[in-house]
């Protein structure tokens, strides 16, 4: 067993355990913290796959900005623990049935397609870091310039949208 494989297996174990912790913990704050752990492990996978830029973006944007926003909203609303209320009695069994079907299907697909794809060599060793950044920047600001600009407009729209959504309520309360 090579070192790469051992690192991969340990990280995969931590990643799946963190995801399950997110799914199963009753307190939403714990869920958010488990999700941060999962994001960090995925960032390490990106490093293993030779994508350091994406790994750093993952940590700053996902584990940093997005999850802080989540924690802020959870604590603002006090929604850490919601009392279980059964408004739709048929929802729970249906959800578990659908979930079981999905699990069986995905296990079948993973097992039936095993061994069809290639091997990942360590590309981190082939390209040095400055060359990697140069190539990445050439791609991002070259052939993907238009999507990049559209993304910036999208972020602006999202920001204005979030402000407008929360401002309208304040006006409604005053009148």
């Amino acid at each position, binding site marked *: 067993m090579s070192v*790469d*494989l051992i690192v991969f297996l340990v990280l*995969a174990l931590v990643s799946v355990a963190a*995801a399950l912790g*997110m*799914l199963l913990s009753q307190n939403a704050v714990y*869920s958010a913290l488990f*999700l941060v752990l*999962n994001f960090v492990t*995925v960032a390490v*996978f*990106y490093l293993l*796959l030779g*994508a350091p*830029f*994406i790994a750093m*973006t*993952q940590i700053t*944007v*996902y584990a940093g*900005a*997005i999850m802080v*926003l*989540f924690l802020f*909203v959870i604590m*603002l*609303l006090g*929604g850490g623990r*919601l009392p279980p*209320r059964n*408004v739709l009695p048929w929802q729970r069994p249906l*959800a578990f049935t*659908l979930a079981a079907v*999905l*699990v069986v299907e*995905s296990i079948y*697909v*993973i097992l039936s*397609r*095993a061994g069809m*794809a*290639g*091997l*990942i*060599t360590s*590309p981190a060793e082939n390209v040095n870091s400055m060359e990697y950044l140069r190539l*990445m920047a050439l*791609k*991002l600001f070259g052939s*993907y310039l238009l999507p990049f600009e559209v*993304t910036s407009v*999208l*972020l602006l729209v*999202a*920001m204005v*949208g*979030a402000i407008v*959504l*929360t401002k309208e*309520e304040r006006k409604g309360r005053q009148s």
Partner: protein
Amino acid sequence: MIPLDYYIALSAVLFVIGTLGVLIRRNPLIIFMSIELMLNAANLAFVAFASVYETFSGQIFVFFVIAVAAAEVAVGLALIVEIFKARRNINIDELSSLKG
């Protein structure tokens, strides 16, 4: 040397856990986190394939997905805060109408 299969299987497992979260949990914040988990699983598959085919396009797509996820979270959380202000309640089963 890690087979690409392992990464795809891990990505699928994370995606399924995210879908289970959307189906089973009733707290909208946790449903939101599960959606983030699914996006993350898809990103992992993107980067794994990009690494096998030695192209940067996969990584650039992941960059865009992260930016779109940030926008989505900002708007979605603003909506959840608004719904909570209007109804004092964010149980997902009771939110069946768009009217405030």
